[in-house]
């Protein structure tokens, strides 16, 4: 049934398809915006994000720096977002399209839930995101690469789960931890040594902060903890109870603890 004033012909439950069919002018088509002759444009890039499992579920963290070449584009950009009550997305790559993808993902999940009356399964959400990454492939070929991490708490299987993606929309579930972005390699090395999947929350936070610090130490594109400006990484936990964001004080004290233990003072403190 169609109603005057509402317009539109789409009757499904996907927000992305709704835009494509009824409001095509609103959709961002990056491929039209980027020169095709091989020259790349300079846009801000997000750097290091990571995700790993801990005792209660899964934790996702990201630094706050966006860079444009060798320049700082923004010191306090947000790269980790809650997409609904039990899932999160962390983005690395071209900041504009990546943040747009995170925003669309959130609307997509909420839209589906409202139209259908129940939320998608965690697998369904990850699959949806993989389609969005795949749709971005033409833009990725022109330099606007977006590679997110997706994580959440699976209420059916009662466990935290993590996925990584490649530019073609390839979706790979990770058993323990994953990290991506320019400093991702260093963060992953750090996680490999420090991480325990049965760690309590406080230890998990410390592990996340240390991995990000390690990445910031080795990779110039990754922002560390800035105590002067009081800029802290974004850290979000997801458990059966839902999403919870770590507070600044919590992160600052985890940082202090990790600095002490780095200097070998941990035992005395």
């Amino acid at each position: 049934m169609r109603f005057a004033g509402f317009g539109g012909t789409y009757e499904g439950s996907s927000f992305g398809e709704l835009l494509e069919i009824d409001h095509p002018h609103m959709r961002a088509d990056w491929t039209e915006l980027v020169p095709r002759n091989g020259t790349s444009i300079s846009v801000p890039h997000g750097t290091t994000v990571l995700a790993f499992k801990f005792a209660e579920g899964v934790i996702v963290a990201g630094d706050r720096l966006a860079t444009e070449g060798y320049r700082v584009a923004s010191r306090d950009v947000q790269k980790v977002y809650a997409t609904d009550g039990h899932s999160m997305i962390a983005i690395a790559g071209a900041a504009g399209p990546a943040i747009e993808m995170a925003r669309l993902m959130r609307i997509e999940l909420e839209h589906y839930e409202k139209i259908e009356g129940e939320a998608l399964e965690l697998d369904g959400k990850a699959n949806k995101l993989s389609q969005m990454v795949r749709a971005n492939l033409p833009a990725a070929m022109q330099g606007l690469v977006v590679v997110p991490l997706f994580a959440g708490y699976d209420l059916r299987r009662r466990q935290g789960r993590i996925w990584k993606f490649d530019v073609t929309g390839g979706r790979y579930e990770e058993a323990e931890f994953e990290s991506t972005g320019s400093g991702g390699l260093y963060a992953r090395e750090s996680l490999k040594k420090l991480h325990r999947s049965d760690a309590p929350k406080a230890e998990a936070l410390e592990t996340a902060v240390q991995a990000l610090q390690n990445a910031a130490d080795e990779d110039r594109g990754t922002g560390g903890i800035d105590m002067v400006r009081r800029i802290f990484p974004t850290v979000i936990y997801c458990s059966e109870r839902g999403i919870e964001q770590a507070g600044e004080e919590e992160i600052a004290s985890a940082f202090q603890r990790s600095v002490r233990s780095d200097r070998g003072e941990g035992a005395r403190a």
Partner: protein
Amino acid sequence: MSIPFYVSPEQVMQDKAEYARKGIGRGKSSITLEYRDGILLMAENPSSLSKIGEIYDRIAFAGVGKFSEFDQLRKVGVRYADVKGYAYSRDDVRARALANAYSQAMGDVFTREMKPLEVEVIVAEVGDPELAGHEHNTIYRIQYDGSISDHENYCVIGGQSDELGSFLQSRYQPTLPLGEAVALGRAALERATNGRSSVPPQNLEVCLLEKARIGRKFRRLATDELNQLLAG
């Protein structure tokens, strides 16, 4: 060629209105009322098909009458709200604009189509104390012919709306806590069954727009929680 009978427009409209009212009258009523911490929407509904739904952060929908028709209206409302929120900002999605759009659409069907919609709907928006200029609750009722009205305190739609309305009028207080508001709503809905039977909690559909929640303020109450509220 046969010559069609002349029927006066008054007659046509009257017939359509009567048809719509009859259809709506066959279904159960739905109550929306303001309580201390937000807006409560409830309906007697033993089935798993919802009569109440979330539209956007602060906006909820309730419908009575023919399920397929009001559910379709609910869905176009969700699409309208999500597109608007995507194009502008989340705070730009307001109940008044949506209620007006419903009014246009339902009025249009009433005058143009052979069969009018056999539904009545409510669009409720909870105020946000943090957002200057958006602090107040609003409740809009849109009838089968597109006529629209705004309501304070409470609003009843459906077959026995007048009866239930006058029941609420003598008992309603604006600062009811949730438990008492739910009990009052249930008492009113029981009224509609002419006191023949009580409405058990599992036959109630109860949703809230909670002022204090961050972001999406809509919440559906589970039967357990409802039992506790009604027992307490």
